[in-house]
């Protein structure tokens, strides 16, 4: 899933402090799972903003709450079509994708980010989300024991580990697993250490961000 983290409320206040009518817009998908932008967080942020305006003596400021099934689909974003233009600003606490799609759809209404979108990751445990994928567009997990060196090695080495790996940890942080140690452990577990000896030639990064904004087009499912 896409993992996001809440923005400091002071930053959000800075965006909306001159608004009179604000919509806090959540998303029921990834950001709900990572507890940054779901219905619960919409409620907390809206209450915090109301408290701020009340303390400023701005009792007339209205802060509304809404959480959509997704903000990355036309279908769900259309649900606020009738009300969107009533607002001076929308604070979207969906991921960066949802924020942008909302802004794209409601062109003349300011849309502000309420989260920092971080990475594609997993819930390792309650309250702990960690990165697994950088969406480079050309998956090599078949050769690396299902562990991605692009996302998980600090130097994204394809032929690692580097000389800084120590007791299974990365040189940049003793809390961080060395991706190549994980790869080697897993290759051993699946009896494929022969794969370690394979020299990974130069990667084609054109399917990554380097190739510009990307597109997946599937004619078989188009209407």
């Amino acid at each position, binding site marked *: 899933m896409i993992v996001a983290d809440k923005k400091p409320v002071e930053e959000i206040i800075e965006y909306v402090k001159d608004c009179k009518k604000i919509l806090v817009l959540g998303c029921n998908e990834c950001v709900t799972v990572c507890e940054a932008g779901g219905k619960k967080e919409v409620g907390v942020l809206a209450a915090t903003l109301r408290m701020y305006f009340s303390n400023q003596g701005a009792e007339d400021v209205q802060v509304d709450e809404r959480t959509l099934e997704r903000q990355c689909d036309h279908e769900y974003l259309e649900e606020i079509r009738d009300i969107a233009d009533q607002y001076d600003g929308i604070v979207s606490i969906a991921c960066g994708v949802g924020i942008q799609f909302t802004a794209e759809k409601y062109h003349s209404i300011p849309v502000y980010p309420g989260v920092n979108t971080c990475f594609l990751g997993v819930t390792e445990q309650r309250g702990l989300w960690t990165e697994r994928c950088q969406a480079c567009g050309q998956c090599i997990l078949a050769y690396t024991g299902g562990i991605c060196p692009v996302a998980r090695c600090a130097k994204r080495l394809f032929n690692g580990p580097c000389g800084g790996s120590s007791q299974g940890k990365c040189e940049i942080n003793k809390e961080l697993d060395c991706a190549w140690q994980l790869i*080697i452990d897993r290759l051993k577990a699946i009896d494929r250490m022969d794969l370690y000896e394979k020299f990974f030639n130069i990667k084609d990064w054109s399917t990554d961000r380097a190739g510009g904004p990307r597109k997946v087009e599937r004619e078989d499912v188009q209407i």
Partner: protein
Amino acid sequence: MSAKTPSKLEKVMAAGHLGVTSECGPPRGSDPEVIKHKAELLKDCVDAINVTDNQTSVVRTSSLATCIHLKLMGLEPILQMVTRDRNRIALQSDILGAASFDIANVLCLSGDHQSFGDNPQGQNVHDLDSMQLLWTVRKMRDEGTFLGGDEIKRPPKMFVGAAANPFADPFEIRVPRLAKKIEAGAEFIQTQCIYNLEKFEEWIRLAEDRGLTEKCYIMAGVTPFKSAGMAKYMKNRVPGMDVPDDVVKRMADTPKGSQAEEGINICVETIQRLKELKGVSGFHIMAIEWEEKVPEIVERAGLMPRPETD
């Protein structure tokens, strides 16, 4: 192995002599006198001088520019290149730049992570990794083509090297990793600083069992301690460094005023012991900001005078 490039270092080792290299860290400013002073200290006691590339991710004068200074002084530089800061276009371009000054050695590295340096908020590149850079230089040299496939007019003629750390974890893949570096194109290897001699000897024996020491020159890396504090720091703080307790104790048990001398003694003893080891083709003396001691180390280790090449 016979020499394939104009590199003096390659010729020395191909002739069966033990090669000797040291290093010159470029200054954190643009004063060329700093480089020239270090080079003067080293010029008669080594075959070639490594020039570090923004080591520990701290901004310095570029390795390429510093190598050119050394070359213009009539010395033999080894251009260190890290993949951290430049993409494949910039790396190939700098290789050509170096070749245009007939710089004949390159050492391919990934580089320390930028979080250790003076720009920890910076982006890193790592378009290639160190092995892919090795492969790139070999392709440019041996096939005379760029990565894109176009022909290079006057391809670079460089002796191509890499680093190896026999002490990093996991130990079991240290030799397979060396094999991969050689497969990718490494012709010489400079190792991490050696203090744990037993572990190094085991590593090179395993490398020899796989026939790797026949395919590539292994240069043993050494660094003299200046003090017991430095030994402790290297043991505890430098990632991938293996400093055994008895070595730290030997430094700590030495009176402060004699610790620098003891550090040199340990370094000389290490070289003398490894000189006899099959598979060791030379020594890389990394006397970090202590270049004035390199002639003494080389002399006392019995590696002087340096052999003449044509």
